[in-house]
């Protein structure tokens, strides 16, 4: 296997009429493949081979858009059209696409954005309408989304030239300088991860995955590509159900969801809203959680309610294809326990380096192997800083990724997590650089200084600031530049921020004032 499309083609040949993605619509394996090939044929006729930006809804049809771009021989970069305009602008500046693909739902919103973002150099825009089943090209020609518009010879030629290390996608994540980083990942990395995950989670053809994350987010790669590989199905659960546990559980039971890979907060939030009190889960039996440290008081409740389910704690960054290690929870947990992050997935090498760059039992968690991202797109400086040559290997080039996380190995070779080396935090499943929030605040007129802290027990970002701007004005201005989840829900205006003797802001003192 050298390409994810081979997985899709095998599953479509085996079960063409089985729905692969269900949610707002039901899309069969054959439809995903046929639509993707038609989109691929159309895009292949257009110039350039640079990555394609995609603006699409959280819909069962979106995987066909991604696969369509892959058929054309390019990588895709999914972008959430509801992000603030300034952030989309930063992403598009980095990506500099010559081609943008939009679906019918995002089209109007995107056109409005595009007229403000691109002045003279407007990229080609291709619209795919899954209601009308048409593709509308830049010059207004319309191609219908059916098998008669597939050029099999052209697609075969493209495939022949592709290699397993070709880029598959670029996913943007928070960067401390205020500019998002585009993590670029190959087919090989994705397939290595999906193979390893399916083995650990014991996913088979009859499973149904419950998708929680937005489709442009790293966690969604499981929900998109596991059906390709195993022939199983993914149900895209409406976002608002995560605020209404009864509706969430009833929906999952109705769709026979058997397996979920969710952020920790997707499991803890429904509990804080009374999940399991009135409605039980009847089909779920495999639960993987990741993104931040799982409070065992919450895991215990899940275990009591799903006594036969398999629970797996996953750890790892986007740069190592979503993951590094896993821990299968093999006992009933107690409230005060801290789960280990376990051991490396198959075909991953995970090790610790101390401050002298020597292998150690405690130190920075480092990872190498075929799951390493290709780098940050169009960003050699930050790529060189994070993806480095293994300092213990002087004989030949061996690229590793330094996660910036601290870990330790116990006597059984099991890895434990001890937090960050820098100021990155995990807030409701999202990676947030506190520096980035401060950068955004300091760039606003009327703000002289700011310090962002995280109140972990309450799961609230707090921003202390000085300046003329009132809270409301600051909140509004922040919402124009950074995503909603990064905007601090608590803003505290001060006459001056407390300082250390060296002139730096005294964060410890501010912690006491949260």
């Amino acid at each position: 296997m050298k390409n994810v499309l081979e997985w899709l083609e095998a599953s479509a040949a085996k079960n063409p009429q089985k729905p692969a993605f269900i949610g707002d619509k039901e899309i069969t394996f054959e439809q995903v493949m046929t639509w993707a090939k038609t989109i691929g044929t159309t895009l292949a006729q257009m110039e350039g081979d640079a990555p394609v930006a995609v603006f699409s809804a959280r819909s069962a049809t979106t995987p066909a858009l991604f696969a369509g771009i892959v058929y054309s021989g390019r990588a895709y970069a999914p972008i959430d059209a509801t992000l603030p305009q300034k952030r989309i602008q930063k992403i598009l500046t980095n990506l500099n696409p010559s081609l943008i693909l939009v679906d019918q739902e995002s089209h109007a919103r995107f056109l409005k954005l595009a007229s403000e973002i691109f002045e003279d150099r407007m990229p080609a825009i291709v619209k795919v309408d899954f209601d009308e089943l048409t593709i509308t090209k830049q010059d207004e020609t319309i191609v219908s989304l059916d098998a008669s518009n597939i050029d099999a010879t052209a697609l075969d030629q493209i495939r022949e030239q592709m290699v397993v290390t070709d880029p598959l996608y670029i996913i943007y994540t928070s960067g401390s300088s205020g500019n998002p980083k585009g993590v670029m990942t190959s087919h090989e990395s994705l397939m290595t991860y999906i193979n390893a995950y399916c083995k650990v989670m014991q996913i088979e053809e009859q499973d149904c995955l419950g998708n929680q994350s937005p489709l442009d987010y790293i966690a969604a790669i499981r929900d998109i590509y596991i059906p390709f590989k195993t022939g199983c199905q993914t149900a895209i659960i409406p976002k608002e159900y995560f605020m209404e546990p009864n509706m969430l559980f009833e929906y999952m039971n109705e769709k026979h969801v058997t397996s979920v890979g969710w952020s920790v907060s997707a499991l803890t939030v429904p509990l804080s809203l009374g999940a399991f009190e009135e409605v039980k889960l009847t089909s779920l039996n495999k639960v993987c959680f990741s993104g931040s440290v799982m409070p065992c008081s919450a895991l215990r409740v899940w275990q009591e309610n799903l006594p036969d389910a398999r629970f797996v704690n996953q750890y790892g960054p986007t740069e190592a294809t979503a993951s590094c290690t896993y821990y299968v929870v093999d006992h009933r947990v107690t409230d005060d326990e801290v789960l280990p992050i376990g051991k490396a997935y198959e075909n991953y090498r995970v090790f610790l380096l101390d401050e002298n760059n020597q292998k150690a039992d405690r130190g920075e968690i480092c990872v190498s192997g075929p799951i390493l991202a290709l780098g940050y797109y169009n960003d050699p400086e930050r790529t060189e800083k994070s993806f480095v040559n293994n300092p213990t290997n002087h004989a030949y080039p061996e690229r590793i990724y330094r996660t910036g996380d601290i870990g330790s190995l116990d006597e059984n070779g099991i890895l434990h997590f001890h937090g960050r080396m820098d100021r990155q935090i995990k807030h409701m499943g999202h990676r947030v650089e506190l520096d980035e929030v401060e950068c955004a605040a300091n760039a606003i007129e009327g703000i002289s200084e700011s310090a962002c802290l995280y109140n972990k027990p309450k799961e609230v970002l707090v921003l202390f600031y000085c300046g003329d701007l009132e809270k409301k004005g600051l909140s509004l201005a922040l919402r124009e530049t950074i995503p909603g989840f990064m905007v601090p829900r608590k803003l505290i205006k001060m006459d001056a921020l407390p300082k250390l003797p060296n002139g730096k802001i005294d964060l410890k003192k501010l912690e006491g004032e949260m």
Partner: protein
Amino acid sequence: MSTREQLMEILEELRPDIDFENEQALIDDHIMESFDVVALVSSLADEFDITVRPKDLLPKNFNNVDAMVELIERLMEE
């Protein structure tokens, strides 16, 4: 302070960018996010000494301020 005024204070602090007086579909139009609902439910518990149960977590109870006031007052009587 009336229930409504107290609620408005909580909402203003939570999301100063939203025009709570005029919005009628806070949940249905995805104006409030899940983080907001979670934070709001815990504030309501502290401020009004009420417990919002899963069966009350319906969009119609949170779509606008009037509906929220009605829910809070009903739960306070229970």
